[in-house]
């Protein structure tokens, strides 16, 4: 019995840590509707800053706690700067566009931390006065864990006090409920957003600073926390601090007991819990329907058929791609194949989120499913390349059919997070199911059939498959089915009212998008000769999302431009020292200059230039 009580306390201490980070993320999302990927970076900065302050000041108990609060305050200022300098300028962009900017910030912070603090991990001192364990029912419990168990609810109480007893808190709650109305009532939104972002950043910094006595400060802290933080926020209900607290306790306690029974569980446990909660409660434990969507953005112009200029550009591009093998440089073909794969992957995601209005944070699942299915078909079933290339997308579509059935019941960010949960669970299965998938060593030696193994031949094959699929996606977007999806995206109520079974259409749309991602996956597996769990990991899904948003979600060409820009810039920039900083800076510049994505920006540029030409 005492053993289980001690395990419970361990879980509660972890819950407090997790809650601090998640509460800040939840407040930021509630008010500004920004999905802040950089929250993990703020957490990491909090840890580094407090490590530096604690070790340089070395002032005993007061010094320790003073350093923790000071570090959190500095992080709050950094967060405020990010809001004022970057995010404030892009609130009117399409939904979720801001996450591209926060992705840029993540890259920049990684290199800044590396430059300032160096690559080695640093283990800070234990908390003065709390450096030992006490015996509770005979079991050793670290004093610092007990302190954390107190700090968590204490911070929750302070936040609730702030929310319920101050004018600022009332405004924050009001903005979480209905942002447009708060604006209409004349509340200074700029101040509200910046201050909410700073409070959220403070909490992230505090969470990081308080980890110093528990773990070494390292450059991996940002990525290791951000996934779980999002899960906690979603389970609790976006914008609900109390919900985040409850969710943090559920996740951490479940994990503390879970590892006793099934030690591998921690890899997928948070995502399993999230999937179950979202299926049962579509807006999380304490969330409301209003929390699913961002504020109103510029409505999207209707799709138009390709203009004359568009046809010329597309033809020229196709001619360029056809002529590429003429150069005596096999690497260009490798790179262009990667571009084609990324384009198809991004276009399939765009079909889902741009046309269908269903944002996915886990689209790589279907890319990976297609790739793995093809690889396994070749290795175990002995299928030749072309049948395997058909088998892959079919399996991807089947996967999307199953997961899509759950996902289309939700909307907005909750839908996105359920797709993420599905992808993570699939990733966990792939990772763990070693005899079938090879675990993290992947499946190797899946090369094209002999007739297609020449560099140019395979390139033309990839061009034919990806190009054909892209044309098909375009046709679908302009078909009656595409019209239904777009109608459902813009006004679900009206679409239902004229007798459309919207959910069925969305389910079909989800499946089709999954199948196209699977096509990209099979081209990938034969071009690389191998497949690894990375293909269906969060990182790959996020890459796709960045391509679509960076390119411009409101244009069919957007994902193509975005994918090409992303792959080519990344390929070039990784050759440089501190490339993450440069890449992040490039992303921020693009975001600020073209708040509607590269394609949107190019479109505006074109409209500016064209009359001038006509006059000349």
């Amino acid at each position, binding site marked *: 019995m005492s053993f289980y009580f001690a395990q419970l306390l361990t879980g509660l201490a972890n819950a407090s840590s997790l809650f601090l980070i998640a509460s800040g993320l939840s407040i930021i999302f509630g008010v500004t509707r920004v999905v802040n990927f950089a929250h993990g970076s703020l957490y990491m900065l909090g840890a580094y800053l407090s490590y530096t302050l604690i070790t340089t000041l070395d002032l005993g108990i007061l010094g320790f706690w003073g350093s923790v609060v000071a570090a959190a305050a500095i992080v709050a200022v950094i967060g405020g700067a990010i809001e004022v300098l970057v995010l404030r300028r892009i609130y009117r962009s399409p939904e979720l566009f801001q996450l591209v900017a926060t992705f840029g910030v993540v890259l920049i912070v990684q290199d800044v931390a590396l430059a300032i603090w160096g690559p080695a991990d640093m283990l800070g001192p234990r908390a003065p006065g709390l450096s030992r364990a006490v015996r509770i029912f005979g079991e050793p419990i670290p004093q610092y864990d007990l302190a954390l168990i107190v700090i968590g609810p204490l911070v929750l109480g302070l936040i609730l006090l702030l929310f319920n007893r101050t004018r600022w808190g009332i405004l924050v709650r009001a903005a979480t409920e209905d942002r447009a109305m708060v604006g209409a009532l004349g509340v200074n939104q700029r101040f509200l957003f910046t201050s909410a972002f700073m409070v959220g950043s403070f909490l992230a910094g505090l969470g990081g600073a308080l980890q110093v006595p528990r773990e070494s400060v390292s450059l991996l802290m940002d990525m290791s926390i951000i996934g779980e933080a999002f899960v906690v926020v979603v389970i609790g209900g976006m914008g609900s601090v109390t919900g985040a607290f409850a969710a943090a306790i559920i996740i951490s306690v479940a994990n503390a007991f879970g590892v006793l029974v099934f030690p591998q569980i*921690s890899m997928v446990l948070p995502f399993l819990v999230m999937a179950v909660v979202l299926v049962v409660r579509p807006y999380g434990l304490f969330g409301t329907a209003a929390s699913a969507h961002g504020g109103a953005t510029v409505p999207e112009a209707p799709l138009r058929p390709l203009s004359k200029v568009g046809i010329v550009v597309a033809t020229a591009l196709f001619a360029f791609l056809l002529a590429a093998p003429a150069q005596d440089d096999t690497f260009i073909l490798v790179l262009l194949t990667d571009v084609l794969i990324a384009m198809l992957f991004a276009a399939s995601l765009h079909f889902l989120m741009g046309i269908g209005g269903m944002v996915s944070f886990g689209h790589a699942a279907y890319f990976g499913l297609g790739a793995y299915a093809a690889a396994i078909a070749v290795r175990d079933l002995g299928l030749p390349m072309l049948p395997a290339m058909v088998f892959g997308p079919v399996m991807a579509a089947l996967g999307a059919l199953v997961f899509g059935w759950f996902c289309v019941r939700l909307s907005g960010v909750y839908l996105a997070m359920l797709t993420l949960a599905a992808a993570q669970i699939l990733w966990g299965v792939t990772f763990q199911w070693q005899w079938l998938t090879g675990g993290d060593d992947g499946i190797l030696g899946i090369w094209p059939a002999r007739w297609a193994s020449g560099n140019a031949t395979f390139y033309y094959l990839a061009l034919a498959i990806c190009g054909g699929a892209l044309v098909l996606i375009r046709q679908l977007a302009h078909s009656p089915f595409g019209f239904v999806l777009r109608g459902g995206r813009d006004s679900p109520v009206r679409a239902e009212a004229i007798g459309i079974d919207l959910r069925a259409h969305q389910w079909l749309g989800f499946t089709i998008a999954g199948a196209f991602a699977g096509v990209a996956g099979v081209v990938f597996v034969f071009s690389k000769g191998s497949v690894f769990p990375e293909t269906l990991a969060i990182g790959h899904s996020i890459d796709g999302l960045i391509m679509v948003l960076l390119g411009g979600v409101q244009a069919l060409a957007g994902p193509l431009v975005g994918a090409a820009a992303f792959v080519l810039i990344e390929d070039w920039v990784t050759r440089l020292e501190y490339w993450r900083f440069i890449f992040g800076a490039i992303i921020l510049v693009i975001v600020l200059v073209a708040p509607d994505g590269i394609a949107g920006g190019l479109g505006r540029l074109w409209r500016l230039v064209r009359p001038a030409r006509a006059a000349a």
Partner: protein
Amino acid sequence: MPTRSLTFAFALGLSALALAPSGPAVAQDAIKIGEINSYTRLPAFTEPYKKGWELALEEINGAGGIDGRPLEIISRDDTGDPATAIRIAEEMIGRDKVAFLFGTFLSNVGLAVADIAARNEVFFLASEPLTDEIVWGSGNKYTYRLRPSNWMQTGMLAAEAAKLDATKWATIAPNYAYGTDAVSAFKEQLTKLRPDVEFVEEQWPSLFKIDAGSAVRALEQAKPDAIFNVTFGPDLAKFVREGSLRGLFDDRPVVSLLSGEPEYLNPLGDETPDGWLVTGYPGDDVDTPEHDAFEKAYRAKWDEEPQTGSIVGYNSMMTIKKLLETAPSLETADLLATMEGLEVDSPTGPFVFRKADNQATMGAYVGKTALVDGQPSMVEWYYAPGEDFLPSEEEAAKMRPAE
């Protein structure tokens, strides 16, 4: 809107740059070699490695190169992603026309590059990956591996573990191929030496996401006589702190893979556990003339103590130097023929690349962790030669797929 158009011009320019053949013009006669590693993903381990090979490169080129030809290393960051590593390898082979490849740290990246090397019939020296697959189960004739492998290092520890009084063992390892392979290799080798041991508990925390408190409690509950640990990096620090707070290591021997390597040991600072049996590298304490010379040069260039990665990087270049001095040409067939049984001298002693399985006999240091004058250190250490912990060449050859 000039700024706007400029930005797009810039973005387009970038794309054009990426497509154009790149890299600065080099002397005609330089020998080009491709190098790939996870520099941004795991800088704590790959930076010392880079410093190691850069030092050796400077020494080689300072002495006039190989037969008058300087070496040019094209070094790239694989971002920890095997697919990116494959693309980079294809660029090095297809565009840069490198003579061969070396590097990689993560096992899956190493395996991916080994596969692409075999497909393109290019020699690949896998410097750091530990997986046994790369020379055995998935071995190919184009891939040689330098660092003492999972099997070798767990074998060194199993030999020490067998001398302990312990029969009930618990294991903790990160939940991915390296962790699972290490645990099964340790179990197999320890059970062979001590048939009476039993393994009573396993913990598999996610890599770099350990819930150390819960894992420590779960290990404690099993009341093992001894613990075998494979966690490293941030996980190790957390495990050590939570474990010592909760008394897990009191009167309980711990055998810990790689924890004596300065990359993992130094960050533990004054929390360094006392008396853990580890494989690693005692750094400055190694007193051979070869090592002293290396250490002096390394300190002069980088102003810090060499780490395990530094040795691996330096020994990689020593291998390359010996290979290029011996090989009749840069043709892959000649390189591969020369690699068979190639003997290399290094700061940590001579080693040989075995003909049967392409594994180097480079060894590792086995000892105990301790705080010496407030510094995390290895004590009572000795050098365990790699050949003593490898299966015989006949057995090893049987584990490899037929060519």
